[in-house]
C-alpha cells in the first residue's frame, strides 16, 4: 500500500518536472519579447499623450488614489527642457468584465490632454467599444469614448450621461473608465499644484 502511494507520487512528480522544464524553455524564449512589447507599447502611449515631451520619468508612490473604487498604479512625469509639462497616470477600476486600466495624461493647465484604454476585458461589441478606434460616441465629430476626455478640465463633474457620453448599452464600462479619468485628473492636478513650478 505504502509502496503504491510512493510509486504514484514519484510518477506524478516526474510528469510535473517534465512539464516545468518544457515551460521554462518556452518562458525563456518568449519572456524578453513579452516584456519588450509591453515596454514599447507603454512608451508609444506616453509619447502619443505628450508628443511635445522630450523625456518621461517614472514617479514612484507620489500619487495615491483617494477614491475607494479607483487604484492608481504608476505615474510618469512628462518633461520638456526639464520643465514639467504634465503627468501621465495609469489607473484601474473594476468594470463589467474585470479590472480595466487607463493611462490618463494631465497638462499643467489642469486639463486632460488625453486618455487611452490600456487593458479592458469587457464584452466585445459593447463595453469593448471603449478601446475600438472606429467606435464613435459622437459620429459627427468622430470622437471615440476615451477621445471625448481630451481638453476637459479636471474639475468638471465627469458624470456619465451628463458631461460624458456613454457607450450605448455599456453604462458600467463607461462609468468605470470615467471614474479612472476623474480620479487621475484630480490627483494629478493637486500634485502639479505643489510641484508644477519646480524644474
Amino acid at each position, binding site marked *: 500500500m505504502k509502496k503504491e502511494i510512493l510509486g504514484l507520487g514519484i510518477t*506524478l512528480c516526474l*510528469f510535473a518536472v517534465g*512539464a516545468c522544464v518544457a*515551460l521554462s524553455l518556452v518562458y525563456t524564449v518568449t519572456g524578453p519579447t*513579452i516584456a519588450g512589447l509591453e515596454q514599447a*507599447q507603454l512608451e508609444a502611449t506616453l509619447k502619443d499623450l505628450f508628443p511635445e515631451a522630450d523625456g518621461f520619468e517614472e514617479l514612484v508612490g507620489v500619487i495615491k488614489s483617494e477614491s475607494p473604487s479607483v487604484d492608481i498604479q504608476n505615474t510618469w512625469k512628462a518633461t520638456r527642457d526639464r520643465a514639467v509639462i504634465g503627468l501621465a497616470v495609469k489607473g484601474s477600476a473594476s468594470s463589467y468584465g474585470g479590472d480595466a486600466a487607463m493611462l490618463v495624461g494631465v497638462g499643467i493647465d489642469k486639463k486632460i490632454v488625453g486618455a487611452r484604454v490600456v*487593458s479592458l*476585458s469587457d464584452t466585445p*461589441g459593447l463595453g469593448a467599444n471603449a478601446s475600438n478606434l472606429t467606435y464613435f460616441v459622437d459620429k459627427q465629430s468622430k470622437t471615440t469614448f476615451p477621445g471625448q476626455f481630451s481638453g476637459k478640465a479636471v474639475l468638471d463633474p465627469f458624470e456619465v450621461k451628463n458631461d460624458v457620453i456613454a457607450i450605448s448599452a455599456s453604462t458600467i464600462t463607461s462609468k468605470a473608465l470615467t471614474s479612472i479619468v476623474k480620479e487621475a485628473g484630480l490627483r494629478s492636478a493637486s500634485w502639479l499644484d505643489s510641484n508644477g513650478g519646480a524644474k
Partner: protein
Amino acid sequence: MKRILTIFTKGLIIENPLLMLMIGLCSSVAVTSSVSNGIGMGLAMTFVITFAELVISLFRKLIPNDARIPIFIIVIAAFTTMVDLSMQAYFPALSKSMGVFIPLIVVNCIIMGRVEAFASKEKPLDAVIDALGMGLGYTWVLMGIAAVRELFGNGTILGLRIMPETYQPILFFILPPGGFMVFALFISFNLWLKKRVEAVSTVREAA
C-alpha cells in the same frame, strides 16, 4: 487508411464535440462575439488538444490509473501556458482580445474528455488524428457561430464592414442570449447534416 479517415471525420459532424457531445460549451458562447476571436480560440484549442493527446498517448502505459487525472491536467496546463505565452509574445492583439479564455483552455471539457476517453487507450497516431478532428470540429462551429453573431450584431465579418452603413446592429446577437440562440440553431443544423451524412454512408455500405 479508411479507419484513420473515420476517426478524423467523426469529430466534424457525427460526434462534433460542441453540437453532439455537448461539452466545452462555456467558451463557445463566450468567445464567439467576433470571428477573429473564434478562429484564435479554435486554433489555440486545437494545438493544445493535439499535443496533449499525443503526449498522453505516448506515455499511456506509464500513467498509473489512480493518478491519471492529475497527470492529464499537468500535461494540458503545460501546453495551454505555452500557447498563452507564445500568443502574448507573437500575437499581442489577439491575446488581448481573448483575455481570460486562453488560460481557461486548461479546463476545457473537450480536451479532458478526449484525453480520458480516447488518448489514454489508443495509439499515438490515432490520438493525433482524433485530436485534429475534434479540434477542427470545435473550430468550424466557433467560426460559424461567430460569423452569424458578428454579422448581425456588429455588421462586420473579421472587422470588414459587410452590412451597409445605415444598418443598425442588433445588439442581441452580441449578448449572451443571442449566443445561445445561434448555438441552438447550429445544433439543429448539425442534426440535419448528420442525418444526411448517415444516409449517404448507409447507402454506400449497402452498395
